[in-house]
């Protein structure tokens, strides 16, 4: 395994499509979890994928970096293109996909290591030199908004952090390998309002640099942080568009019901 240096992300033009989803279907044994989803994600845009529990939004976001393959019994068809390349092409190694398209989960998933080593985890996998790791860890912690709180105690166990800090550490861990895309699967669902606010502030800052795709069932959160909203219902993409338009003047009755909280 040769060490692939974390790519210095060359800037893409504003509004350029980074991820394009075409005809994406995910099938479990009998059930269709995702049904011909078509969606684009562009630079400098935070897209919120909203929908009720069980609508397939978590599965959807897990197809975008092939994490879905870790769940046995699901079959994926259709295309997810990253910078034009279908990530499900047989010649593409899912490990490399996940190094370009990072992910943050519902609950903080810090490893039993120091704060520093958690943030450095992805870089250690790439066998980066130590001085480069030092630099990248600091940069990632600054970008995730955690640096000022932990800079003097980087050697402490990551478990000593609060839930919100742990979640921002997970964001830093994902950012350290400099992905172009970051998937956030309900990143604040286990956090209190204060911690949620800080994670949302981090998201608003990050979307200027990389493509953010946020899964949330919280319409308020989508309104606060996102530029675009995609509404999923029973595996189908019902409607997508600019946040203000979707939340205030949805075209589809289902969307209307969901955003106003009258969901049957």
């Amino acid at each position, binding site marked *: 395994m040769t060490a692939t240096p974390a790519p210095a992300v060359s800037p893409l033009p504003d509004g350029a499509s980074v991820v394009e989803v075409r005809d994406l279907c995910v099938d479990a044994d009998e059930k269709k979890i995702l049904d011909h989803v078509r969606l684009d994600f562009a630079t400098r845009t935070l897209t919120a994928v909203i929908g009720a529990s069980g609508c397939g939004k978590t599965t959807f976001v897990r197809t975008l970096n092939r994490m879905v393959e870790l769940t046995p019994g699901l079959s994926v068809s259709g295309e997810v293109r990253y910078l034009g390349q279908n990530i499900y092409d047989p010649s593409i190694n899912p490990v490399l996909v996940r190094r370009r398209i*990072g*992910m943050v989960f519902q609950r903080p998933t810090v490893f039993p290591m120091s704060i520093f080593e958690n943030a450095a985890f992805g870089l250690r996998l790439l066998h980066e030199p130590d001085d480069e790791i030092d630099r990248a860890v600091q940069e990632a912690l600054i970008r995730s908004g955690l640096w000022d709180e932990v800079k003097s105690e980087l050697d402490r166990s990551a478990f000593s952090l609060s839930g919100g800090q742990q979640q921002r550490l997970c964001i830093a861990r994902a950012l350290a390998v400099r992905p172009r895309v970051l998937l956030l699967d309900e990143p604040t669902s286990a956090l209190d309002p204060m911690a949620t606010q800080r994670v949302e502030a981090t998201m608003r800052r990050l979307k200027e640099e990389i493509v953010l795709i946020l899964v949330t069932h919280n319409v308020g959160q989508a309104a606060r942080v996102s530029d675009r909203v995609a509404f999923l219902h029973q595996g189908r993409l019902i409607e997508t568009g600019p946040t203000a338009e979707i939340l205030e003047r949805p075209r589809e009755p289902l969307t209307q019901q969901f955003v106003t909280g009258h969901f049957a």
Partner: protein
Amino acid sequence: MATALAAPGASAALDPADDLRRGHTWRLRWRTGWDRGMNYLLPLLFAVAIIPIGDLLYFIGSKAVPTLSVGVLTSGATYLSYDALAVPIVSTFEFLALATAIAVALGLFGGIATAEFLSEGAASWVRMSANLLAGLPSVIVGYFGWFAFVLYFGWGEVMLAGVLTLAFFMTPYVFRTADLAFSSIPRPIREAAYGTGARPVQYILRVGTPIAFPQILTGVFLAMAIGLGETAPILLTVQPGVVVPPNVFSPATYLTYLIYTGYQSPKGSLALTLAFQAAFLVVVAVIVLNIVVRIIAARYRKRLEGLYQ
């Protein structure tokens, strides 16, 4: 009238102070009393468990300790004359070290592969086989070793045959704990590692192993304790030697072998004394193994606090 405090259905006026006493039926009294009684019974049950162990230790210790000395443990280049334990102690140590190395290699590899890479169906078959193997009487495993190594491979009754048979017997214990330890790593932790771009081997070495380590270590020590106490696999596959085996194709002796051959000897005989000494050493070694594993596991568990929240 304190009607606001009256329970539903209570028609008569009720003293509020009485509210917590109503419903204290004999059935409830009996239930509560039973629970309390069981609480007192627990220490008694603990005594039932601890007394035989204490008795056993005292019995073996009282026979063995007066006859033991540093000289007995360290002397005896040969023990032809049955007067020293150095040879069986060193041989046993070698047996156990080799068998543990083999069992750990096989068990760890198999356990991790089963937990991480096998499909549900295949994994359940492998687990069933391992459980079956762990449940086999050791004498049957001994016969297997005898047929396979001594007869089929034609090595004769040499140390290597015993080492492999013993390893065969210990492997499922290491396998089971390695499998369980890796299977019980929280799924989000596993996914976070893969989601950061870890290859499977990187996940296993950098994230999985530190988390699974205390459990795996427990399994290894348990396997060692079981291996140390086994008699049949060695008895059937190795000819007892009188010197520390110069190589693995030599005869060799084992502590439990002394117990097995010596326990019927007449009172006061050297063989019986030796049997008690060997039994004492085995019991002490097993206890020490258990204590050591607890200390190490506790130290590691402290590092993992917070993982399972």
